[in-house]
């Protein structure tokens, strides 16, 4: 069975269906970009993956575990904004990623010192070592998102969920963040779901690009039907699949 399975998901708000018959299987280590028009349920689907909401019908399971009832440590998340804690320093934010899960929400003594060492090392690696004791408000948008991603990964989640993580960044910073994310992924082999508005970004980063759209459309009553996954592209090799030939095709070579 696949690592992450969404089986026959239906979800809506009130009498308005948002998602219908969504099925998705994702292997461990895959990067799935989720694209679609506004209001087509991609963020709703991410919330379901996050277990912030539970689907009306259907099951989402990670690593064969029972469906989650609320967000837990198996899921790391980075939102477009507000993803770091403004009242903690950069170092404090990374410490929180390890400490919040304890009974009192804080590490003490040797465990704290060890976690601080790791936090310093992480900050150095993501290029924020020189501002370890600053507060997030003093950082640029790109730096804040780097911190948010590092914070989410520090908690060692099983899947990483990104909700338009680079949507508020300028194009230059965005490209830098792509490199940063690809490096991190190469290191950790994390399974990632990323909701994005930017098709190019989706294809550049993703192994797969899934498109949410409404397969049925009632012009008199647009809210009548929900959205589902209408396309599931293989986005490896720059979106041109099958160019790495798996067979030994002498025909082509001799030609």
């Amino acid at each position, binding site marked *: 069975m696949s690592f992450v399975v969404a089986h026959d998901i239906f979800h809506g708000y009130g009498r308005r269906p948002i998602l219908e018959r969504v099925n998705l299987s994702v292997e461990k280590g895959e990067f799935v970009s989720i694209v679609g028009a506004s209001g087509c349920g991609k963020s709703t689907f991410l919330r379901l993956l996050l277990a912030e909401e539970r689907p009306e019908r259907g099951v989402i399971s990670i690593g064969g575990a029972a469906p989650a009832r*609320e967000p*837990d440590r198996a899921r790391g*998340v980075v*939102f477009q904004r507000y993803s770091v804690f403004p009242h*903690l320093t950069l170092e404090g934010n990374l410490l929180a*990623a390890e400490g*919040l899960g304890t*009974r009192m929400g804080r590490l003490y003594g040797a465990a704290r010192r060890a976690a601080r060492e790791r936090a310093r090392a992480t900050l150095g690696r993501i290029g924020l070592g020189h501002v370890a004791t600053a507060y997030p408000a*003093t950082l640029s948008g790109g730096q804040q998102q780097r911190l948010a991603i590092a*914070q989410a990964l520090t908690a060692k989640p099983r899947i990483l969920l990104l909700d338009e993580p680079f949507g508020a960044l300028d194009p230059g910073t965005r490209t830098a963040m792509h490199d940063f994310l690809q490096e991190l992924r190469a290191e950790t082999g994390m399974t990632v779901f990323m909701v994005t508005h930017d098709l190019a970004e989706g294809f550049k980063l993703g192994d797969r690009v899934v498109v949410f759209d409404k397969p049925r459309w009632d012009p008199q009553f647009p809210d009548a039907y929900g959205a589902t996954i209408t396309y599931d592209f293989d986005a490896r090799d720059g979106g041109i699949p099958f160019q790495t030939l798996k067979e030994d095709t002498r025909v082509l070579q001799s030609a």
Partner: protein
Amino acid sequence: MRVINRHPGPALRLALVLAPFAALLLAYWIASELRLAANPADKLLPAPESVIDTAVALFTEGDRRTGRILLWHDTWASLVRLVSGVGIATALALGAGLAIGLVPHLRAMLAGFVGVVSMVPPLALLPILFIAVGLGEASKITLIVIGIAPVMIRDLSQRVLELPREQIVKAQTLGASSLVIALRVALPQVLPRLIGAVRLALGPAWLFLIAAEAIAADQGLGYRIFLVRRYLAMDVILTYVAWITLLAFAMDAGLRALSRRAFPWMEAGL
């Protein structure tokens, strides 16, 4: 150039800050001169010099019968009541605010109740308090608490509700329990708001304190003002009013300085 785009320089700003105070003092001084010229024994608007003489005497000379300097005793009695009342209200507001803001069940139970209670005019409850808890300190402190706590609770719970949903979700994905979210995520972020709420509540707190003291007390700043009112002792009343204003202003400034120093991450948010 539009007036909304014109800004005063530092010297002019200082002059503008001081101008209303100077105008008030000048108006008083002129009115006092006019009345005293008509009747040198006038008690309604005593001359500024005689107010200052009285003030010096009030701050330094003991009571003729007991030898105690009454003003300091009044100040101490009033401040104990005020600080107790505001302290209790603050603790209540913090606890209830976090509970209402974070726990849907408690929000369902308490939000409406607090909303209704905050509409009860506290002074209308004062007779009930005097009957129920007596004329001692408890009734005055209770009045302050009843007067300011509901508004503070509403303010604080609103602040907790305004915390971005993203942060609460993020804390959950990092494994935080409800208690940890309350203590490590919500509490530190509403503390600056709490100080703001206390600053706003200080005005009403003084109002309720002086009202309670005016009706039943044997010492206190409000008690003294209403006592000497019978003798038309305007010089004493004015001194006390100025002193109360100074105390209230100092508290406000102190709290503002505290929040600036204690919450550097708030930046310009205060």
